[in-house]
């Protein structure tokens, strides 16, 4: 009996301690939930100072984790940064609050290319934060042919040196693009054909990887890979032999965005924050530091020469014209998922 009392006591003490430690300061807090290192720390600090608030910046590792958490009611976050297709999904599931543009005058600074995207027409719920295009990165030391088509991944000379993104929509979408279809096809015949095509590519694949594809390309473990343009820029800085191209069949364009979850406690502050980040000078400072593409046209003049001349960060109109957003495929997602499991497990 004594033992039990003892245990109970400790338990109670634990609870009290834990509750107490949950209480924070009295300042208004903006709870941001985003990708790691997605903002310049100085710019965040400037916002804190200007508005006398505290920013609390937590991180997630992928869109699916974010969705599961927000959907289950978890969070208490005021500002989140889902990717394009996830914005569409979250709108459908009624998880986002409409943005009050009266608080975000600097929205006007966003390039027309990134206004009214197909996943959120009229930007009712989201504003593009950064964006990129999935193309081919290849190491010119090993890859001597001219690369301009997805078909080049299938070249038997690169056997065992091909790396693909670890993402069903990206990879199956790529094979669909190669066949001249939409990357978000819902036609099972088209999807099956694309998957059969990918099965021929499998023996060439070194690995599926999204997060560490940069290291694999820098270290020359892989010669040729499907890579996001922003990552290609990072790779090329460390390994100048690596080149990047948006294939002639076109590629998938993606974006990370600002959005506010429904029921956010500090919606107005979150909007103020978005407006602050879209200010041309703040914007330049922020993107210069994180090295992603800046959709803010007014910020152009504040950026460094080096940033403005990076062709992988600033894609040309021509390249962008060949791109397509990933659309919502509805229940066909199950088909994509099962095929993807087949591809990765090597079973049928």
């Amino acid at each position: 009996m004594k033992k039990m009392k003892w245990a109970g006591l400790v338990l109670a003490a634990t609870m009290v301690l834990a509750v107490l430690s949950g209480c924070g300061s009295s300042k208004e807090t903006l709870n941001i939930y985003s990708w790691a290192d997605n903002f310049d720390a100085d710019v965040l600090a400037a916002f804190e100072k200007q508005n006398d608030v505290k920013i609390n910046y937590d991180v997630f590792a992928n869109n699916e984790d974010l969705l599961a958490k927000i959907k289950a009611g978890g969070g208490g976050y005021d500002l989140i940064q889902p990717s394009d297709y996830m914005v569409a999904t979250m709108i459908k599931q009624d998880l986002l609050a409409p943005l009050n543009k009266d608080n975000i005058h600097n929205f006007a600074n966003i390039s027309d290319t990134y206004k009214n995207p197909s996943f959120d027409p009229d930007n009712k719920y989201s504003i593009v934060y950064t964006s990129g295009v999935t193309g081919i990165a290849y190491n010119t030391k090993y890859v001597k042919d001219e690369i301009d088509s997805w078909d080049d991944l299938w070249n038997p000379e690169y056997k065992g040196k091909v790396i693909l993104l670890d993402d069903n929509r990206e990879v199956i979408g790529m094979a669909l693009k190669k066949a001249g279809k939409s990357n978000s096809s819902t036609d099972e015949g088209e999807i099956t054909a694309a998957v059969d095509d990918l099965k021929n590519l499998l023996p060439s694949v070194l690995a599926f990887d999204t997060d560490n594809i940069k290291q694999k390309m820098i270290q020359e473990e892989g010669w040729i890979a499907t890579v996001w343009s922003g990552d290609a820029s990072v790779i090329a800085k460390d390994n100048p032999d690596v080149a990047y191209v948006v294939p002639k069949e076109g590629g998938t364009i993606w974006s990370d965005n600002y959005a506010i979850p429904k029921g956010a406690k500090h919606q107005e502050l979150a909007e103020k924050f978005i407006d602050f980040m879209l200010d041309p000078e703040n914007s330049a400072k922020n993107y210069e530091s994180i090295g992603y593409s800046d959709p803010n046209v007014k910020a152009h003049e504040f950026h460094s020469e080096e940033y403005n001349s990076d062709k992988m960060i600033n894609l040309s109109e021509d390249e962008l014209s060949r791109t397509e957003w990933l659309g919502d495929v509805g229940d066909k997602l199950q088909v994509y998922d099962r095929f993807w499991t087949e591809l990765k497990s090597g079973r049928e």
Partner: protein
Amino acid sequence: MKRKNHPLLGIHSLLVMIFIYVPIAFIIAYSFNSSRLAADWSGFTFEWYASLFTNRHVMEALGNTMTVALVSTVVSTLLGTLAALTIRKVGRKTKAGVGGLLYLPIIIPDIIMGLSLLVLFTQFHMPLGKMTIIIAHITFCVSYVYVIVTTRLTGMGGQLEEAAQDLGADAWQTFRHVTLPQIMPGIISGALIAFTMSLDDFMVSFFVSGPSSTTLPIYIYGQVKRGISPEINALCTILILVSVTLIFLAQFMLNRGKGQKKQSVLPF
């Protein structure tokens, strides 16, 4: 009475230790590497150690992780040991049922545990934070403690305890002076595993965490997309050094205080 270990055993043990420590040596070496992406060796630097201590996020995450790990280890060690001690005395059916239940947290996939607890907490309007992480960690840690202490009890038999009671010791005295010292290595090993599991848990913590309760694993998983900063390597290096120093100090104090008395004590 201790027997000598066979030299081949020594060689085997040494090799396994090398196997365990080779990657660790690498982590330490790369904490001095000036390249951020840990791709190539590009020069020696102390930069990461300097920036580590000014990184508010890492320091906060470290504090959260340690609080959570310590509290969950203490509570789950108490609960798990109590359960292991009691289950010896119950009938076979109860034993099978409760024993099976106590295995569940180890078997259940992390994501199920994380998501279902998240649903539970939000249904009860419990604010997500350190407390919810601690509750979740205790839930799986208790199993590890239980199975290891049970292992110890299985091999113990009841003779010593019976003898003590025959000699007039009451229940508490028997527990304090006979049972507890006997199962101590089991409790310590169980606590060690519980601490390790809590320290390293990502999936469950991710789902039940809220604003301001980011733990180190959550922070590190989040960094993967951009490349994990060598600051984390620096942090790991410091953690190892601190742990080893603590053990060394504890051993030193123990030897001074108690002479040669046989005791397997860890400073946790």
